[in-house]
Each structure stands twice: as C-alpha cells, then as structure tokens.
C-alpha cells in the first residue's frame, strides 16, 4: 500500500500552521519542495478557502510573507479562551513616532523628536519593547553614533501590510492646498499690518471655516 503524496495546499497549510510569523514564498517553496509557481497557485486556492467569509482562520499576506491568523470576527472568543485582554491601543504619540520611522526612517531618536517638536524617548522605548520599532544600525556621522530606528516586520503584520509599499505616499496624505494654507497662515501672522489676532493664533486651525486643524507638534493626546 503506497501513501498518496499530500496536495500542495496541504503542505502549505501544515507549514503555515506552525509559524507565528509571516513566511515568505521562497521559504514556503523551500520547506515544501514545491516550485514557486505551484506555491503561488496553492496560496491563491488557500486564500479563497481561508477568507473571512468562509473560515474562522484567515490567510493573510503580511510583512512580505503569508501567515494564518484568526478571523477578526472571532477575536472575542479567542480572547476569552486565552483569558487575556487585547493589548491597549497605541497612543497618538506612538502613532506619530511610527509614522516618522515608516516614512522618514531609518532615523535617530533626535530626528523623531525634531519632527514632532517634543522629546519622544519614552514613546520610542515603549515601541521598542512592543517590537514595533527596532534599532537597525547607528548614524556614524552624528556625534555619539546614535541608533537608527526603523519599523519591524511585526509592525507590518500588525498593520496588515504586505510591505512598506502598501502605505500611501506621505505627500499624498495632505493636499497641496492644505499645505499652502499652513504656510500662508504662518507667514501672514508675521506681518504686523494684518492686525488680525484670530489669524495670528490660527496654528490650531479654524473649525468654523472648515480649514484643517493643525495642532502644535507633539500635542498628540493633549
């Protein structure tokens, strides 16, 4: 009696089941001994089988690989079973630091603080502990060679992003019109002949006119 060779989908299911981290396609091909195109085809089949509408387990493409996760619709049951609460959501300051590392990184703590306008060391420390940020090297040109910070694969997985290219370009997040309005406000506030106190105090925006609200840097959770 001869055993039938397992189907490619079964091999991939088995490998993905035992990995808590995203597995790149090349690693899946190496582990299963399947050619890459067959891996891709099998992954496409699995994606249909493990989708939020059909299963409590979903196949996600994240951080340059694939991993099995629970369906978010079932998260309450999972958390009750594990008897653990979902980690506290990140603060506004933490999101800003991550945005700095994602779009402007790798960069030093000092550079993060300069962009945000406030010291960000405590936030960075917290993000390092949560493995969302990592020190990937040092800025040899700067005095003291401070560490360079970058986002991690855990960050990509936590944001459901396959790669950094999944995020919208930084310049696309704010329209040129909004940027011009910020510049105009600041420059016009310096002109004494305007005499408009409301304009001079308008860094926080004018909600009555529907203009964008731009808080002072670092005022994330004030």
């Amino acid at each position, binding site marked *: 009696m001869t055993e039938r060779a397992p189907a490619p989908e079964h091999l991939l299911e088995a490998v*993905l*089941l*035992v*990995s*808590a*981290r995203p597995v790149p396609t090349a690693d899946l091909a190496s582990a299963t001994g399947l050619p890459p195109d067959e891996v891709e085809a099998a992954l496409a089949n699995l994606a249909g089988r493990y989708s939020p509408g059909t299963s409590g387990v*979903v196949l*996600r493409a994240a951080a340059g690989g694939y991993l*099995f*996760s*629970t*369906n*978010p*619709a079932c*998260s309450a049951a*999972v958390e009750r079973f594990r008897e653990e609460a*979902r980690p*506290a*959501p*990140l*603060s*506004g*300051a*933490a*999101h*800003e630091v*991550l*945005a*700095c590392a994602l*779009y402007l990184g790798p960069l030093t703590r000092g550079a993060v603080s300069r*962009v945000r*306008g*406030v*010291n960000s*060391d*405590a*936030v960075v420390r917290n993000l390092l502990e949560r493995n969302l940020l990592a020190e990937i090297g040092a800025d040899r040109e700067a005095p003291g060679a401070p560490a360079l910070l970058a986002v991690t694969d855990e960050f990509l*997985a936590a*944001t*459901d992003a396959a790669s950094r290219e999944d*995020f919208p370009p*930084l*310049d696309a*997040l*704010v329209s040129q019109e*909004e*940027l011009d309005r*910020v*510049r105009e406000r*600041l*420059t016009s*506030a310096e002109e004494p002949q305007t005499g408009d106190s409301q304009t001079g105090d308008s860094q926080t925006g004018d909600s009555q006119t529907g203009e*964008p609200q*731009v808080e*002072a*840097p*670092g*005022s994330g*959770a*004030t």
Partner: protein
Amino acid sequence: MTFEATGRSLADFTVELDVYSGPYEWLLALILKDELEIFEVPLRELVGLYAGSRDPEAPNALDRDTDFAGSAAALILLKSRTLSPATDPEADGEDAVAATPEELAERLQQYLKIRRAAEDLRDRFARAAGHHPSAHVVPPKPGRLRVAEDRVTLAARRTFSRLIEPPVAHLGPITVTVQELAGLIRAGLLRGPVSFEDLTRGMDRLRSAVAFAAALSLAQEGSVKLLQPEPLGALTLEPSEPSPR
C-alpha cells in the same frame, strides 16, 4: 484648630486610560520617572474620571479634591512647559537660531503630513487588531540567527591571535634539582627522624619548595615517612623501616 495628617487621600483612585490602567498615584510616579510621556496622558479625560468618581459626602472629600487639584495642576504645568520650545540661552547650533516663518512653515507642513500618516496608522492598527496569529512559535535555527558583525570580528581575532607569552626575564637560572635535595634528605635521615623545618633552615624559598617536592617524591617511593600530627602542623620526616630480606 488642629490639623491631622491626611495621608494618601487619592490612594483608592484608579484610572482607566488607553495608555494606562491602575492607581492614579502610580500614574503620577510613571510620569515623573519618564516611563510614560506626559503627552500620552489625556488630562481632560483624567479630570472627567475624577469628577465621575468623586463622592462629596465622603469624610475626606475636601482632602481628595485638594490633592487632585494640586496634582492635576502640576500635570498641566508639566505638559505646558514641555510643549513650550526650549529657551536655553547657552544653546548653540541651528536649533538656537530663531527659525524664520518659512522654516517654521516647512516644519509644520512636515508635521502635518506625519500627523495624517499617524491617523492612517491608527485606522490600520484598529482594523488588524482582531487578528491572532498561530500560537506555535518555532525556535529560530542557529544558522538563521542574526549575526553581529562586531562579534564575529572579535571571535575571529580571539581564535587566530597568538597568545602573548608571559615575560620570564626576572626569573634566574634554575640552580637546584629535586634529585639533589632528595640526596640531602637521605643524608639527613641517616641520623634519624628530622623535622622539615630543621632540614630547610637556611634555605631560600625556591630550595624549600623543591625540598618539599623531594620529600613527597621519597614518601611516594616508600623510602620516607611523612608525619604531621595536625593539619598545617610541624612536618617530620623519618626513614621507613627497612624491608625484610
């Protein structure tokens, strides 16, 4: 009028915030120790929590209100001071130079973009929060561990470097041998038992040490008995009984 020590009137006040959950006093301690950034603490929400938990009929209500007002005012002061730009008169470098409106506009525009990106990230985190990955954690293979270049260099240097031989120039030529002092001991024992102290009297430390080695050697071959009644006590050497023929 008498004043009594009020103690810690806010000891039982706990807060539930996004960034922290627990006793209010610990929250203050974390902020003061820089474990938690003041910007992450929503002060308005904190005041709301206190107002919601306030019991005006409590016997220490006034103490609690006073303590909370004092600590909340300190937090507001701390937050506002941290928000203000640094004004160190001795600071130099580009930060010390007053920024022009153009430079300020550049920085604010950059910050606006980061702020929008942060909002986008917040939504992404929220959408992906319900995913729980497999609980199986496979230990990394040794070959796939991250290798630090510095440590590899150091290990290679240790492996291939030649050990430095210790300097021996201060040591004089060897002028005595075990055999020579073994002969001296045998000669001394011809007159009967002899103490090691008498045997080595007048010898330098090197000769005494070699004499001890010679005595051990003779004892091992059975021609000498070593007697020492107590540990570290006087050592006496006596000739062994001649083996019966």
